[in-house]
C-alpha cells in the first residue's frame, strides 16, 4: 500500500470537504444559539406528534403577545421555540394562553440567557480553543524534542496542528452548512465538542508520529518517505480500531442518548472521523511534503 505516493489525492479529498465548509462559514457563518446571543428557549411537549397546524397556532399565540420568533423546530411530540429574552411573567402569560388552545401542552424546559452572559460565553469559548491549541503545540514539541534527523520536533508540531485545524474546520464548516439549510444550532456544548475533537485529533496524530519517530531511530532517515509510509501502514490498523471503538460508542449515544445532546454527538462523530483521516492521510504525508520541499531547495541552491 503506497499512501505517500498518492498523497495529493488524499489532500484533494480533504479540500473537497473543506472548501464548501469554508465558503459556508464566510457566507452564512454559524447559526449561534441563545448561549452566545442571549435569548429564551422554550421546550413544549404535546400529547401527540407536532403537526404543521400546531406550529402555526403556537406562532399565532406568540404574535399576539408581540413576541418575535427566531425559530421553531420540532421532533416527534416536542417543540423547540427560540425567541428574544423574555422574563418568567411573560412566559407565564404565554403558557396560560397556549394551554387554552392545547389542553395537554406542557412546558418541559424554559431557559433565558441575558446578553451579558452570552458575550461572556462566546469570549470564554474562543479563549478556551486558543489556549488548548497552544498548550498542545508546546507539549508535542517538547515530547518529540529528540526526534532523529532529518525530521525536527518543530515540524512534527506544525504538521499536527495543521491536521488539527483541518479537523476543526471540517466540523465547523459542516455545521455552518447544516445551520444554513437545516437550522442546526451551535451552543456551548458545540465548543466542548470542538475541544474534544482537538484532543482526539492530536491523540491520533501522535500514534502515527510516535511510530515514525521509532522507525527513524531504527531504519535511519536516508529514505524519509519510505520510512513514513511504512510507519503509516504499521499503525493504520490501530488508528482505525481506536477510532472505531469511539465511533461505535458515539453511534449508540446518537441513536439512544436523547434529544438534548444529539448535535453534540454529531459534532464529535464528524470530528473523530476527520481526525482519524487527517492523521493518516494528511499529517504524515505533510511531513514528507515538507521534507521533499526543503531538500529540493537544498540540492537546488
Amino acid at each position, binding site marked *: 500500500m503506497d499512501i505517500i505516493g498518492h498523497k495529493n489525492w488524499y489532500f484533494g479529498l480533504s479540500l473537497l470537504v473543506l472548501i464548501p465548509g469554508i465558503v459556508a462559514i464566510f457566507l452564512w457563518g454559524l447559526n449561534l444559539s441563545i448561549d452566545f446571543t442571549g435569548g429564551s428557549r422554550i*421546550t413544549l411537549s404535546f400529547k401527540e406528534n407536532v403537526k404543521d397546524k400546531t406550529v402555526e397556532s403556537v406562532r399565532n399565540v406568540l404574535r399576539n403577545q408581540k413576541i418575535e420568533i427566531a425559530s421553531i423546530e420540532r421532533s416527534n411530540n416536542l417543540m423547540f421555540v427560540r425567541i428574544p429574552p423574555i422574563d418568567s411573567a411573560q412566559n407565564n402569560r404565554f403558557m396560560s394562553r397556549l394551554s387554552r388552545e392545547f389542553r395537554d401542552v406542557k412546558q418541559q424546559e424554559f431557559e433565558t440567557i441575558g446578553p*451579558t*452572559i452570552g458575550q461572556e460565553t462566546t469570549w470564554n469559548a474562543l479563549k478556551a480553543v486558543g489556549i488548548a491549541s497552544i498548550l*498542545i503545540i508546546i*507539549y508535542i514539541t517538547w515530547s518529540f524534542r529528540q526526534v532523529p534527523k532529518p525530521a525536527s520536533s518543530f515540524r512534527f508540531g506544525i504538521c499536527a496542528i495543521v491536521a488539527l485545524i483541518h479537523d476543526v474546520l471540517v466540523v465547523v464548516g459542516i455545521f455552518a452548512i447544516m445551520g444554513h439549510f437545516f437550522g442546526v444550532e451551535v451552543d456551548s456544548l458545540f465548543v466542548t465538542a470542538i*475541544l474534544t475533537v482537538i484532543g482526539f485529533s492530536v491523540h491520533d496524530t501522535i500514534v502515527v508520529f510516535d511510530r515514525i519517530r521509532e522507525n527513524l531511530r531504527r531504519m535511519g532517515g536516508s529514505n524519509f518517505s519510505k520510512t513514513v509510509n511504512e510507519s503509516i501502514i504499521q499503525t493504520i490498523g490501530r488508528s482505525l480500531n*481506536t477510532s*472505531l471503538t*469511539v465511533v461505535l*460508542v458515539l453511534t449508540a449515544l446518537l441513536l439512544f442518548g436523547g434529544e438534548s445532546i444529539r448535535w453534540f454527538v454529531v459534532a464529535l462523530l464528524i470530528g473523530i472521523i476527520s481526525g482519524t483521516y487527517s492523521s493518516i492521510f494528511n499529517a504524515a504525508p505533510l511531513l514528507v511534503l515538507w521534507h521533499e520541499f526543503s531538500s529540493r531547495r537544498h540540492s537546488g541552491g
Partner: protein
Amino acid sequence: MKKSPRFLLWFIILLIILTVLINIPLEGLFPGIKPLLFKKGLDLAGGTSLVFKADMKDVSPGQRDKALEGVKNVIERRINYFGVSEPLVQTAVGKDDYRVIVELPGVDINQAKNIIGTTAELSFWEVEASGSAKTASPSAYPLGVLEALGPNAKKTNLSGRDLQDTSVSFDPNTGKPQVQLKFTGEGTKKFADITQRNVNKIVTIVLDNHVIEAPRVNQVISTGDAVISGAFTNESAKVLSTSLNAGALPVPLIPLQQHGVDATLGSESLVKSLFAGALGICIIIIFMTILYGRLGIVASIALVFYTLFVLSIFKVSTLSSYGITLTLSGIAGFILSIGMAVDANILIFERMKEERRLGRSWHEALELGFSRAWTSIRDSNISSLITSFVLYQYGTGVVKGFALTLAIGVLVSMFSAIIVTRTFLRMVYR
C-alpha cells in the same frame, strides 16, 4: 516496572470488591444500609437554576462583598424555610460584577422566583402603648410577633434603611458573641424614641416576615448604637449580622439567566443516556473479543472494572464537599471515555501482535507490547488531559461537567488499561 505483581493483584482484587459493593443495591439485602447515591444535576433531576446580578450601584465599594454575602444568607434562609432539599447558593465576583447563582432541584421556575423574591426587609415591632385591642387576622403579623408581643403589636417606623452597619462583637463581661447595630443619623433618632417608649418592654426585630430576635430594652439609647445579646454562637451571631446587613443594604437582584427543567424530561434523559452507555459497553466488549480473542476478553473485564470504578468515584465524591454532580453532558463525557479507555489496550495488543510476528514468545511480546506502546499512550492521554483542564477553566456549568468526567475517565482508564490489564494478562500467560 517489575514491582511485586502478587501485591498488585491483591490490591486490584480488593478494589474490584470495593467498587462492586458500592455499586450493587445492598439496601435490598440489608435494609439498614444507606446506599450511596449519585448527585444529579438539574438537567437530570429537574429543577430551576437562576443567575442574578446584584445591582451594587447604591452600595459603596467597601461594603459590596459584605452585601453580597448578606444576599446569599437571605436566599439560603428563605430556601431552608421552604424546605428545598440539596439547594445550591453560590456567589461569584468578577470585575465590578457581583453575581448570585441559585440551583433548586425539584422546584419549578415560578416557585423558585417566589422563594427568592426581592430584597431582604428588616423591621422593628413594638407593643402599642394605647392598648386598644385590634382584631386583625394573625396573618397580618410576621411569624412570631404575636407570640412575643401579643395582639397589640405594631410596626415602628424604623427599618433596615436606617441601619448604617452591623458587626459581631464580644460582651466584655461574659465574652459571649453579640451583634452590634449602628444606625444612621435619622435612624438614631427613631431608635431613641422607640427605646424611650419601650423601656423594660420587648421590641422584636423582624426580617423577611420572621422574628429573628426579641430583646428586652434595658434603657434609652440615644447614641445610635445597639447590641443584640442572647444565646449566640460565633456562627449564629455572624449569620444574624450578615442577614441584617442584607436588610440594611437594599441590593436589587437583576435576573441574568433562568433555566427550568421539568422533572419528567430530566429522568427521561437520564434513562436514555444510561441505556446508550450500557449499549456502548456491550458493543465494545463484542468488538474487542472478536478482534483480539483472549486478550480482548481480559480487556473487557478491565473495562467493566473501569466503569464500576468511575461510577464509584462519582458516588464516593458526594460524601466530600467536592461532590461530582452528574449532568447529561457529564454522562456523555463518561461514555466517550469508555470508548477511549480501550484505546490504550488496542495500542498495546497491536504491538503485541507485531512482536509475536517477529517470533517472540507470548511472555516477551506481552512485556514489550506494554513498554513500547507506553510513549504514545502517555502523549495522547496528556493531550486529552490538557483539553479537559482548559475546558474546566473556561467552561460554563455544562462544559465543566463534561470536562471533569472526561478527565477522571482518562486517568482511571490509564490505570485500568495498563496496570489492571497487565496484571491479569501476566496471570494468563505465566
